[in-house]
């Protein structure tokens, strides 16, 4: 299975703290993406990092990618209560089909 795994499964932090989520995957990839899902809603794309990139920033988000370890991390700095959601990593493989293979998700709770 190409399904990735995320760690931790659940994370609870105080507002203002940083949140780090990790993702591991199994196959060679074209790119890795992070998505956010609020309860009962669809997924929202956050950031994409290509296989030849090691780090990318977008606002309060920082993503790293280590293709040798087949892992990625998502850091959310200065968290807010509104960041409470589930976060999924998704990989796009080398077939060119752009199908996404999602990780198991991390449920983040930011306590005001």
């Amino acid at each position, binding site marked *: 299975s190409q*399904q990735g795994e995320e760690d931790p499964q659940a994370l609870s932090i105080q507002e203002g703290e940083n949140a780090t989520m990790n993702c591991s995957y199994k196959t060679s990839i*074209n*790119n890795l*993406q992070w*998505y956010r899902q609020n309860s*009962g*809603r*669809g*997924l*929202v*794309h956050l950031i*994409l990092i290509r296989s030849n990139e090691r780090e990318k920033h977008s606002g309060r988000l920082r993503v790293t990618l280590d293709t040798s370890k087949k892992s990625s991390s998502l850091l959310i700095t200065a968290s807010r209560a509104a960041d409470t959601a*589930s976060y*999924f990593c*998704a990989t*796009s493989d080398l077939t*060119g*089909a*752009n*199908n*996404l*293979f*999602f990780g*198991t*998700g991390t449920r983040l709770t930011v306590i005001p």
Partner: protein
Amino acid sequence: DTAVSQTPKYLVTQMGNDKSIKCEQNLGHDTMYWYKQDSKKFLKIMFSYNNKELIINETVPNRFSPKSPDKAHLNLHINSLELGDSAVYFCASSRDLEAGDRGQFFGPGTRLTVL
């Protein structure tokens, strides 16, 4: 101005019935997708489709079939519904087979319950 819309939002039906879920995108994207999210929140790709090619995940039963009347629509038809089909189904679209930097745009989901 919803980018990717799905109808219905909720669908409750009896086992053995045939049902459809509609999806429309107004982004001018070339590729559309269907995903299934089960009760444990696992998301799995079912289909991807552009105007040239349908790619089917080999684990999807042939009771599921996507139908695209035009580039902006990819509807999901399900025959002979089974209890295990209960899940949330998400439609998504992207610019083309290349991801670009904006990833895929997801619809709000359709929660299917098979009784």
